Protein backbone atom coordinates (compact mmCIF):
# COMPACT_ATOMS: atom_id res chain seq x y z
CA UNK A 1 0.00 0.00 0.00
CA UNK A 2 2.79 2.40 0.92
CA UNK A 3 4.71 1.38 -2.17
CA UNK A 4 1.67 2.14 -4.30
CA UNK A 5 1.33 5.70 -3.07
CA UNK A 6 5.06 6.36 -3.43
CA UNK A 7 4.70 5.54 -7.10
CA UNK A 8 2.41 8.51 -7.56
CA UNK A 9 5.03 10.77 -6.02
CA UNK A 10 7.51 10.06 -8.82
CA UNK A 11 5.83 12.26 -11.47
CA UNK A 12 5.25 14.97 -8.86
CA UNK A 13 8.95 15.02 -7.92
CA UNK A 14 9.99 15.04 -11.59
CA UNK A 15 7.58 17.88 -12.26
CA UNK A 16 9.01 19.80 -9.32
CA UNK A 17 12.54 19.36 -10.64
CA UNK A 18 11.40 20.60 -14.06
CA UNK A 19 9.81 23.68 -12.50
CA UNK A 20 13.07 24.29 -10.63
CA UNK A 21 15.12 24.15 -13.83
CA UNK A 22 12.73 26.49 -15.61
CA UNK A 23 12.65 28.87 -12.65
CA UNK A 24 16.42 29.30 -12.82
CA UNK A 25 16.84 28.92 -16.58
CA UNK A 26 14.14 31.36 -17.67
CA UNK A 27 15.60 34.14 -15.56
CA UNK A 28 18.88 33.99 -17.41
CA UNK A 29 19.41 36.14 -20.47
CA UNK A 30 20.43 33.84 -23.33
CA UNK A 31 21.86 36.76 -25.29
CA UNK A 32 24.59 37.29 -22.69
CA UNK A 33 27.39 34.89 -23.42
CA UNK A 34 30.31 34.91 -21.03
CA UNK A 35 33.42 35.92 -22.91
CA UNK A 36 36.16 33.27 -23.06
CA UNK A 37 38.62 36.19 -23.05
CA UNK A 38 38.10 36.92 -19.36
CA UNK A 39 41.38 36.26 -17.55
CA UNK A 40 43.35 36.09 -20.80
CA UNK A 41 45.60 38.69 -22.41
CA UNK A 42 43.73 41.35 -24.33
CA UNK A 43 44.03 40.72 -28.11
CA UNK A 44 46.55 43.25 -29.40
CA UNK A 45 45.61 45.61 -32.20
CA UNK A 46 46.88 48.74 -33.88
CA UNK A 47 44.34 50.57 -36.02
CA UNK A 48 43.81 53.89 -37.73
CA UNK A 49 42.58 56.57 -35.44
CA UNK A 50 39.02 57.66 -36.22
CA UNK A 51 40.02 61.31 -36.22
CA UNK A 52 43.21 60.97 -38.27
CA UNK A 53 43.98 58.02 -40.60
CA UNK A 54 47.71 58.81 -40.33
CA UNK A 55 47.73 58.12 -36.58
CA UNK A 56 47.74 54.55 -35.22
CA UNK A 57 46.09 53.77 -31.92
CA UNK A 58 45.98 50.44 -30.13
CA UNK A 59 46.53 48.24 -27.12
CA UNK A 60 50.17 49.33 -26.78
CA UNK A 61 49.02 52.83 -25.75
CA UNK A 62 47.93 51.51 -22.37
CA UNK A 63 50.77 49.19 -21.40
CA UNK A 64 51.05 48.82 -17.64
CA UNK A 65 47.81 50.49 -16.66
CA UNK A 66 44.14 49.60 -16.62
CA UNK A 67 41.90 50.86 -19.41
CA UNK A 68 38.46 50.48 -20.90
CA UNK A 69 37.52 49.50 -24.43
CA UNK A 70 34.05 50.54 -25.54
CA UNK A 71 32.70 49.09 -28.79
CA UNK A 72 30.28 51.48 -30.46
CA UNK A 73 28.79 52.58 -33.74
CA UNK A 74 26.43 55.28 -34.93
CA UNK A 75 23.92 52.67 -36.11
CA UNK A 76 23.73 51.22 -32.59
CA UNK A 77 20.78 52.39 -30.53
CA UNK A 78 22.16 51.14 -27.23
CA UNK A 79 25.30 53.21 -27.80
CA UNK A 80 23.22 56.38 -27.96
CA UNK A 81 21.52 55.29 -24.74
CA UNK A 82 24.73 54.73 -22.80
CA UNK A 83 26.56 57.77 -24.13
CA UNK A 84 25.69 59.99 -21.17
CA UNK A 85 27.00 57.35 -18.76
CA UNK A 86 30.25 57.08 -20.74
CA UNK A 87 30.67 60.87 -20.51
CA UNK A 88 30.19 60.65 -16.75
CA UNK A 89 32.79 57.89 -16.48
CA UNK A 90 35.18 60.03 -18.55
CA UNK A 91 34.56 62.99 -16.22
CA UNK A 92 35.54 60.84 -13.23
CA UNK A 93 38.93 60.70 -14.96
CA UNK A 94 39.90 57.53 -13.17
CA UNK A 95 40.59 55.19 -16.06
CA UNK A 96 41.17 56.00 -19.75
CA UNK A 97 38.52 54.78 -22.17
CA UNK A 98 39.31 53.87 -25.74
CA UNK A 99 36.57 53.61 -28.32
CA UNK A 100 36.42 50.92 -30.96
CA UNK A 101 34.29 52.28 -33.75
CA UNK A 102 32.80 49.13 -35.26
CA UNK A 103 31.62 48.81 -38.87
CA UNK A 104 30.79 52.44 -39.18
CA UNK A 105 31.38 55.40 -41.46
CA UNK A 106 34.10 57.79 -40.44
CA UNK A 107 32.16 60.97 -41.19
CA UNK A 108 29.07 59.81 -39.28
CA UNK A 109 31.14 58.70 -36.30
CA UNK A 110 33.02 62.00 -36.11
CA UNK A 111 29.75 63.89 -36.35
CA UNK A 112 28.33 61.81 -33.48
CA UNK A 113 31.28 62.66 -31.22
CA UNK A 114 31.12 66.34 -32.17
CA UNK A 115 27.42 66.52 -31.36
CA UNK A 116 27.15 64.32 -28.28
CA UNK A 117 30.57 64.82 -26.70
CA UNK A 118 33.63 62.60 -26.74
CA UNK A 119 34.26 60.32 -23.74
CA UNK A 120 37.25 58.58 -25.36
CA UNK A 121 40.96 59.32 -25.05
CA UNK A 122 41.30 57.76 -28.51
CA UNK A 123 39.06 55.96 -30.98
CA UNK A 124 40.22 53.07 -33.17
CA UNK A 125 38.48 52.77 -36.53
CA UNK A 126 37.44 49.22 -37.47
CA UNK A 127 35.18 49.51 -40.53
CA UNK A 128 35.58 45.84 -41.53
CA UNK A 129 35.04 44.45 -38.05
CA UNK A 130 38.27 42.43 -37.93
CA UNK A 131 39.50 43.62 -34.55
CA UNK A 132 35.96 43.22 -33.25
CA UNK A 133 36.07 39.52 -34.18
CA UNK A 134 39.40 39.16 -32.34
CA UNK A 135 37.69 40.52 -29.25
CA UNK A 136 34.66 38.27 -29.65
CA UNK A 137 32.35 41.22 -30.17
CA UNK A 138 28.89 40.24 -31.35
CA UNK A 139 26.67 43.15 -30.48
CA UNK A 140 27.41 46.77 -29.67
CA UNK A 141 27.56 48.28 -27.19
CA UNK A 142 30.14 46.18 -25.39
CA UNK A 143 32.58 47.45 -22.79
CA UNK A 144 35.75 45.66 -21.69
CA UNK A 145 37.86 46.38 -18.64
CA UNK A 146 41.53 45.53 -19.12
CA UNK A 147 43.79 45.28 -16.08
CA UNK A 148 47.23 46.77 -15.49
CA UNK A 149 48.72 43.39 -16.42
CA UNK A 150 47.05 43.51 -19.86
CA UNK A 151 44.47 40.83 -19.02
CA UNK A 152 40.77 41.21 -19.76
CA UNK A 153 39.00 41.53 -16.39
CA UNK A 154 35.40 42.06 -17.38
CA UNK A 155 33.06 42.42 -20.31
CA UNK A 156 29.77 44.25 -20.20
CA UNK A 157 27.40 43.24 -22.99
CA UNK A 158 24.74 45.83 -23.61
CA UNK A 159 24.07 49.32 -22.35
CA UNK A 160 26.34 50.64 -19.59
CA UNK A 161 24.52 52.27 -16.69
CA UNK A 162 25.87 54.06 -13.60
CA UNK A 163 24.66 51.07 -11.51
CA UNK A 164 26.53 48.53 -13.64
CA UNK A 165 29.61 50.75 -13.57
CA UNK A 166 29.57 50.94 -9.76
CA UNK A 167 28.60 47.32 -9.17
CA UNK A 168 30.70 45.43 -11.77
CA UNK A 169 33.54 47.70 -12.84
CA UNK A 170 34.65 49.78 -9.86
CA UNK A 171 35.54 46.85 -7.53
CA UNK A 172 37.62 45.18 -10.27
CA UNK A 173 39.24 48.48 -11.13
CA UNK A 174 40.16 49.09 -7.48
CA UNK A 175 41.69 45.60 -7.27
CA UNK A 176 43.81 46.01 -10.39
CA UNK A 177 44.94 49.50 -9.32
CA UNK A 178 46.06 48.08 -6.01
CA UNK A 179 47.97 45.28 -7.71
CA UNK A 180 49.91 47.52 -10.09
Amino acid sequence: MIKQSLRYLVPAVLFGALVGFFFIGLQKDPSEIRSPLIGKSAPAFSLESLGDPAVRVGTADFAGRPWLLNVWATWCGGCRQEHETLLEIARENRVPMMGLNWRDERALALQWLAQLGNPYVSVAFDPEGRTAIDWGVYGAPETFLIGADGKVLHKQIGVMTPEIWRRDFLPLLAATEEGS
Partner: protein
Amino acid sequence: MRSTWLQASLLLVWALLANGANAIDSERLEDPVLQQRYEQMTHELRCLVCQNETIADSNATLAADLRRELREMLKAGKSDAEIRAFLTERYGDFVLYLPPVTPRTWLLWAAPALLLLGGMVVAALVVLRRARTARADPAALEEEPENL
Protein backbone atom coordinates in the same frame (compact mmCIF):
# COMPACT_ATOMS: atom_id res chain seq x y z
CA MET B 1 -4.59 30.40 -71.32
CA ARG B 2 -4.55 27.60 -68.84
CA SER B 3 -1.11 26.31 -69.83
CA THR B 4 0.31 29.82 -69.66
CA TRP B 5 -0.77 29.99 -66.03
CA LEU B 6 0.75 26.61 -65.36
CA GLN B 7 4.00 27.61 -67.00
CA ALA B 8 4.10 30.86 -65.08
CA SER B 9 3.53 29.19 -61.73
CA LEU B 10 6.10 26.48 -62.45
CA LEU B 11 8.58 29.18 -63.32
CA LEU B 12 7.80 30.96 -60.07
CA VAL B 13 8.26 27.80 -58.01
CA TRP B 14 11.52 27.06 -59.76
CA ALA B 15 12.75 30.61 -59.14
CA LEU B 16 11.89 30.38 -55.45
CA LEU B 17 13.59 27.02 -55.03
CA ALA B 18 16.71 28.10 -56.90
CA ASN B 19 16.83 31.25 -54.85
CA GLY B 20 16.33 29.46 -51.55
CA ALA B 21 19.35 27.26 -52.06
CA ASN B 22 21.73 30.13 -51.53
CA ALA B 23 19.63 33.03 -50.43
CA ILE B 24 22.09 34.71 -48.09
CA ASP B 25 25.60 33.88 -49.13
CA SER B 26 26.73 34.92 -52.58
CA GLU B 27 30.45 34.41 -51.99
CA ARG B 28 32.08 31.33 -53.42
CA LEU B 29 35.55 29.84 -53.19
CA GLU B 30 37.25 28.81 -56.40
CA ASP B 31 38.46 25.46 -55.13
CA PRO B 32 35.45 23.08 -55.03
CA VAL B 33 36.94 21.12 -52.12
CA LEU B 34 37.34 24.28 -50.06
CA GLN B 35 33.87 25.41 -51.11
CA GLN B 36 32.44 22.17 -49.78
CA ARG B 37 34.26 22.51 -46.44
CA TYR B 38 33.14 26.13 -46.35
CA GLU B 39 29.48 25.21 -46.82
CA GLN B 40 29.73 22.46 -44.25
CA MET B 41 31.34 24.71 -41.64
CA THR B 42 29.02 27.67 -42.13
CA HIS B 43 26.19 25.29 -41.25
CA GLU B 44 27.92 24.23 -38.01
CA LEU B 45 28.65 27.71 -36.67
CA ARG B 46 26.17 29.79 -34.75
CA CYS B 47 25.49 33.40 -35.52
CA LEU B 48 25.72 35.07 -32.11
CA VAL B 49 23.50 37.99 -32.94
CA CYS B 50 20.54 35.89 -34.06
CA GLN B 51 21.25 32.89 -31.91
CA ASN B 52 19.04 30.31 -33.55
CA GLU B 53 20.59 30.69 -36.96
CA THR B 54 23.80 29.34 -38.38
CA ILE B 55 26.15 31.79 -40.04
CA ALA B 56 25.13 30.21 -43.35
CA ASP B 57 21.51 31.24 -42.80
CA SER B 58 22.01 34.59 -41.18
CA ASN B 59 21.89 37.92 -42.88
CA ALA B 60 23.50 39.73 -39.94
CA THR B 61 26.64 41.73 -40.53
CA LEU B 62 28.53 39.67 -37.97
CA ALA B 63 27.62 36.47 -39.79
CA ALA B 64 28.94 37.97 -43.02
CA ASP B 65 32.16 38.96 -41.24
CA LEU B 66 32.55 35.47 -39.80
CA ARG B 67 31.97 33.92 -43.23
CA ARG B 68 34.70 36.18 -44.59
CA GLU B 69 37.10 35.11 -41.79
CA LEU B 70 36.21 31.50 -42.53
CA ARG B 71 36.93 31.86 -46.27
CA GLU B 72 40.26 33.52 -45.55
CA MET B 73 41.28 30.84 -43.08
CA LEU B 74 40.31 28.07 -45.52
CA LYS B 75 42.31 29.74 -48.29
CA ALA B 76 45.26 30.06 -45.92
CA GLY B 77 45.17 26.27 -45.53
CA LYS B 78 43.93 26.11 -41.92
CA SER B 79 42.43 22.81 -40.77
CA ASP B 80 38.85 22.56 -39.50
CA ALA B 81 40.15 22.05 -35.97
CA GLU B 82 42.30 25.18 -36.17
CA ILE B 83 39.36 27.21 -37.42
CA ARG B 84 37.10 25.94 -34.65
CA ALA B 85 39.80 26.75 -32.08
CA PHE B 86 40.13 30.28 -33.51
CA LEU B 87 36.42 30.88 -33.10
CA THR B 88 35.95 29.28 -29.68
CA GLU B 89 38.89 31.27 -28.28
CA ARG B 90 36.93 34.38 -29.16
CA TYR B 91 33.29 33.43 -28.84
CA GLY B 92 33.28 30.35 -26.61
CA ASP B 93 31.83 26.90 -27.31
CA PHE B 94 28.46 28.54 -27.87
CA VAL B 95 29.54 29.40 -31.42
CA LEU B 96 29.61 25.68 -32.25
CA TYR B 97 26.35 23.95 -33.04
CA LEU B 98 28.09 20.71 -32.08
CA PRO B 99 29.63 21.49 -28.68
CA PRO B 100 32.67 19.42 -27.62
CA VAL B 101 32.23 16.75 -24.96
CA THR B 102 33.32 18.38 -21.69
CA PRO B 103 32.33 17.84 -18.03
CA ARG B 104 29.56 20.38 -18.65
CA THR B 105 28.17 18.80 -21.80
CA TRP B 106 28.62 15.04 -21.42
CA LEU B 107 25.12 14.66 -20.00
CA LEU B 108 23.71 16.47 -23.04
CA TRP B 109 25.55 14.11 -25.39
CA ALA B 110 24.77 11.00 -23.37
CA ALA B 111 21.09 11.87 -22.85
CA PRO B 112 19.70 10.05 -25.93
CA ALA B 113 21.58 6.84 -25.07
CA LEU B 114 20.63 7.09 -21.39
CA LEU B 115 16.95 7.64 -22.23
CA LEU B 116 16.99 4.69 -24.62
CA LEU B 117 18.67 2.52 -21.99
CA GLY B 118 16.15 3.63 -19.35
CA GLY B 119 13.29 2.79 -21.70
CA MET B 120 14.75 -0.65 -22.40
CA VAL B 121 15.10 -1.36 -18.65
CA VAL B 122 11.47 -0.36 -18.03
CA ALA B 123 10.30 -2.44 -20.99
CA ALA B 124 12.30 -5.46 -19.79
CA LEU B 125 10.85 -5.15 -16.27
CA VAL B 126 7.31 -5.00 -17.64
CA VAL B 127 7.84 -8.02 -19.87
CA LEU B 128 9.41 -10.04 -17.05
CA ARG B 129 6.60 -9.21 -14.68
CA ARG B 130 3.97 -10.14 -17.23
CA ALA B 131 5.76 -13.42 -17.88
CA ARG B 132 5.73 -14.19 -14.14
CA THR B 133 2.04 -13.35 -13.87
CA ALA B 134 1.29 -15.53 -16.89
CA ARG B 135 3.09 -18.50 -15.36
CA ALA B 136 1.26 -18.13 -12.04
CA ASP B 137 -2.15 -17.59 -13.57
CA PRO B 138 -2.52 -17.75 -17.38
CA ALA B 139 -6.03 -16.30 -17.21
CA ALA B 140 -4.70 -13.07 -15.70
CA LEU B 141 -3.26 -12.06 -19.06
CA GLU B 142 -6.73 -11.86 -20.56
CA GLU B 143 -7.22 -8.58 -18.79
CA GLU B 144 -4.68 -5.86 -18.13
CA PRO B 145 -3.01 -6.63 -14.77
CA GLU B 146 -4.11 -4.03 -12.32
CA ASN B 147 -0.73 -3.16 -10.92
CA LEU B 148 0.90 -2.17 -14.17
